């Protein structure tokens, strides 16, 4: 592992964070009355779009996995379609989990679904970009001692921190402070976003800190 790798990782992560910050400020130039809390759903869509776009661009530009040996057009198309299906399925399964956790079944279904979408954006999209629609690889990355590169290591960290952020975001809902951000699912989406950003910031630093101890099988 080289320091340049870590530097590249850091820059890509900074770009992701930048895209989230942009998603907060750019829409207010075009849309009237835009704010994260009041027009939350719009922000969710925009943020999800931005993060997905940045991830795709980074995937095409950086190509951390140089494993694609042969690339016919049909192969690429099926791969892309598979990715889309995976993304949708992860959205739906997240939605189911939220309902099981107590989200209302019928009312606020759109809000719940958009929360599922943004959580998928933070977790499934990077996985799809990095590992492709390959469940075995996913399982390998998310099991112990399964990571083979710093990219996968940071992927693991950001994904887990997004989940933990969303989980912690649910805690203030029962409090009687009556703040606008306590409304379902705002606190959870904000928690997931903060978790994702924290993961993005922490993972390169952590890898840099532990670069002596970390050894990967393939590198």
């Amino acid at each position, binding site marked *: 592992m080289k320091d340049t790798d870590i530097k590249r990782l850091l820059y890509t992560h900074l770009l992701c964070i930048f895209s989230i910050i942009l998603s907060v400020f750019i829409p207010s130039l075009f849309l009237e009355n835009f704010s994260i809390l009041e027009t939350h759903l719009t922000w969710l869509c925009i943020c999800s779009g931005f993060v997905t776009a940045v991830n795709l661009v980074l995937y095409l530009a950086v190509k951390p996995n140089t494993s694609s040996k042969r690339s016919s057009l049909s192969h690429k198309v099926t791969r892309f379609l598979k990715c889309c299906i995976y993304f949708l399925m992860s959205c739906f*399964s997240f939605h189911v989990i939220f309902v099981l956790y*107590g989200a209302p*079944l019928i009312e606020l279904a759109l809000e719940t679904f958009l929360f599922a979408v943004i959580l998928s954006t933070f977790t499934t999209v990077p996985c799809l970009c990095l590992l492709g629609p390959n469940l075995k690889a996913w399982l390998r990355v998310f099991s112990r001692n399964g990571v083979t590169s710093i990219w996968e290591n940071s992927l693991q960290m950001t994904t*887990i921190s997004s989940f933990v952020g969303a*989980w912690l975001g649910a805690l203030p809902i*029962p*409090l009687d402070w009556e703040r606008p951000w306590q409304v379902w699912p705002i606190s959870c989406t904000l928690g997931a976003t903060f978790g994702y950003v924290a993961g993005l910031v922490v993972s390169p630093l952590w890898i840099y800190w532990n670069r002596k101890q970390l050894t990967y099988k393939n590198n």
Partner: protein
Amino acid sequence: MRLGSGTFATCCVAIEVLGIAVFLRGFFPAPVRSSARAEHGAEPPAPEPSAGASSNWTTLPSPLFSKVVIVLIDALRDDFVFGSKGVKFMPYTTYLVEKGASHSFVAEAKPPTVTMPRIKALMTGSLPGFVDVVRNLNSPALLEDSQNSWKRIIFYGDETWVKLFPKHFAEYDGTTSFFVSDYTEVDNNVTRHLDKVLKRGDWDMLILHYLGLDHIGHISGPNSPLIGHKLSEMDSVLMKIHTSLQSKERETPLPNLLVLCGDHGMSETGSHGASSMEEVNTPLILISSAFERKPGDIRHPKHVQQTDVAATLAIALGLPIPKDSVGSLLFPVVEGRPMREQLRFLHLNTVQLSKLLQENVPSYEKDPGFEQFKMSERLHGNWIRLYLEEKHSEVLFNLGSKVLRQYLAALKTLSLSLSTQVAQYDMYSMMVGTVVVLEVLTLLLLSVPQALHRKAELEVPLSSPGFSLLFYLVILVLSAVHVIVCTSAESSCYFCGLSWLAAGGVMVLASALLCVIVSVLTNVLVGGNTSRKNPVHPSSRWSELDLLILLGTAGHVLSLGASSFVEEEHQTWYFLVNTLCLALSQETYRNYFLGDDSEPPCGLHVEQGLDGATPAWQDGSACDALERDKGHRSPSPSQVLRGHEKWMVLASPWLILACCRLLRSLNQTGVQWAHRPDLGHWLTSSDHKAELSVLAAISLLVVFVLVQRGCSSVSKAALALGLLGVYCYRAAIGSVQFPWRPASQDISKGIIEARFVYIFVLGILFTGTKDLLKSQVIAADFKLKTVGLWEIHSGLVLLAALLFRPHNLPVLAFSLLIQTLMTKFIWKPLRHDAAEITVMHYWFGQAFFYFQGNSNNIATVDISAGFVGLDTYVEIPAVLLTAFGTYAGPVLWASHLVYFLSSETRSSSALSHACFCYALICSIPVSTYIVLVTSLRYHLFIWSVFSPKLLYEGMHLLITAAVCVFFTAMDQTRLTQS
């Protein structure tokens, strides 16, 4: 002395119960009372103050009204009279309120809003303590002197009154308030006397207490159409009384007074007990021809305290104000009287309040109310002197109204400072209780490594001579503190009131515990040096599940410090249980997919990071240990299980999650979302009786199918008949119906059916105990013991099925289903250790406590469970049944835990480990909570949110103690076997 960890834990919990009892006694204040009791007899009333001149008014003023009728309607909420419902259903009352000669108020009841303390507040003006809630079921005779003396009083209505004032009524007819399903007969029993009594003139006071409205509220809530009918009925009763009183008035010199009031309100779910606006605000209407009213005089109902009624009635009847009353006179009642009389009444009231203040507050002279009282008394004296000198003048009137305002301000301040006086804590008793409980908790925590060791035994240094000096020193210090605190006695202290023997016993206990802790601590510190050389560090064996359990417990305990989290505690438990299920599903996936290369199912694996928050790869050494751990864990299940069973294992956490989600929407509990529609309300509404019947029948069937597999054939038959009896009982009391008799009119109390079920419950429990005893005699018969434990479990299930409301029967069915799923597909294949299984049982037990519809609010206790199969109120069975009905969830999970661990043969010490863990995990929240409550004792919500929770925690600890005794008994039988 060597003790098994189970026995040790049971002893600890028993001592903890004692500590909590002392704490509770100190926390819940003794009510404000006057110490001048009966010995003084009839005290002469305070004479009119007069500066220099001698007043001729020294006796009590004469009554203002000749006859008083009090119509008390249980659970009459203020908007039932003043709101749109009042306009629609109570036209006569609305007319009186808006145009008639009346004064209307909104009387605010203090929590707890249950009937008995409210009657006390209305009639004696005193503020009953929180402990009176417990006595609400069985009210003892009231010693407080109320205004009921010397008058001929007739009473019809709730029996509670007769118990409260046993000798005051010249004539009475009490009705029982506990058959909640009856809402017509109770009121007819009151109204049937009305014509006769109104015709007679030989009474001074008539009290009518109508219960029907409260019963309707309990059955179907404040928006039910039945409420309208009941209100119209009450309106016609009121009209009858009012016209009769008016026609009588010509014969008597004085006017009559009609009082309409409610004892407490009704929450949006139809219950009461807490302190929401709907429960606290009740209407109070005083109707009399004495209250003149000009046309166009619109009076808006003012907010007053419920305790004001007693003082007002006493003045109105020309009686002395009760000594313990903290209320102030409702001034509009006497507004029409001459100025001198008005001042006289106000003076009597302030004198009484300031006397009460003097007796209850040591530094009463600094109280602003007392200063105001002194000043207004002086002014009053001046006014009297002027009045006696010259009769009518502008000056006199102006000065008089100034004195009046001064008096009213003084009354208000005095009344307020007396009401806050109720919130005085007995800190010494609280401290003693806290010290005992914390010592026990420390001891439990210190002995964790020893108690969870393979041998499950621990050395308790009860008689270590090295510490005897310390022991005697501590006793000496404690008794010195005791003497100092008790002799300096600023306020009354329960612990000082105890006999020397009892207090000394508690002190010996506390110091002995301290010595034991010190000696255990030294053992741990000395032993720690040797164990550190041991290469196996305990933390290296922790999985994500253990981490979740630890964090969850810590998080729950910390959340108890916030009032909203206490109100919404069910959300915490649902959240934790859901996360537990996800963690379990992650564990199953790891075990089944990482070992072998089979095709994984799609879509469901993504959540694995959601809970296992701290991945172990951060720590290399921990990771290795975990790998090793997994290495010897995982191969066995994959060999044991075949194809479909493997799929069941993978799916079962999701099935359990789905079950929990369904149960969660059954009973909407808590505060913030309590008004949301839920399945329970939908089912209990009278339109959906058929659906409810089908659901109850299906649930009972599921219960039978799930329970019968472990029973012997005799108890199988008993169980079937018992469950049939449960359905018959519910049909008899009219909550469900038989398909062949769709609209049954004859509603009974179902005594025979319920007793039929009780016989089977006792029979099954007896068979279980017999099997257990037999298994002890025939030492080798292991299977018999398992069967016996399962029979005891099924007996409890049958009892719960009888006590649960029919819409809650699915809770029982799902609880058995989840237990079966967990046992078969999670605990057995994944081989969790006893501690993990115990904590999971505890968490599910807590979640089921809330799934049943309970909350941390007194109002949700289903007292009707205490009257199943009983003709009249019998205290001991009623309390036991209510406690079991309320805590059925935790108790059933605990009994399942005992059964499960005994049926597993892998470890001989599992049961005592489990007992220790159960005791520990129950005592951590309760010990932390009493510390939190002590530090939050001046919080705004202390009475409405924190203290009901404290009662729940105390009760839960008592239940835990019972469970631990059961555990230890089972453990003992195991020990004697081996």
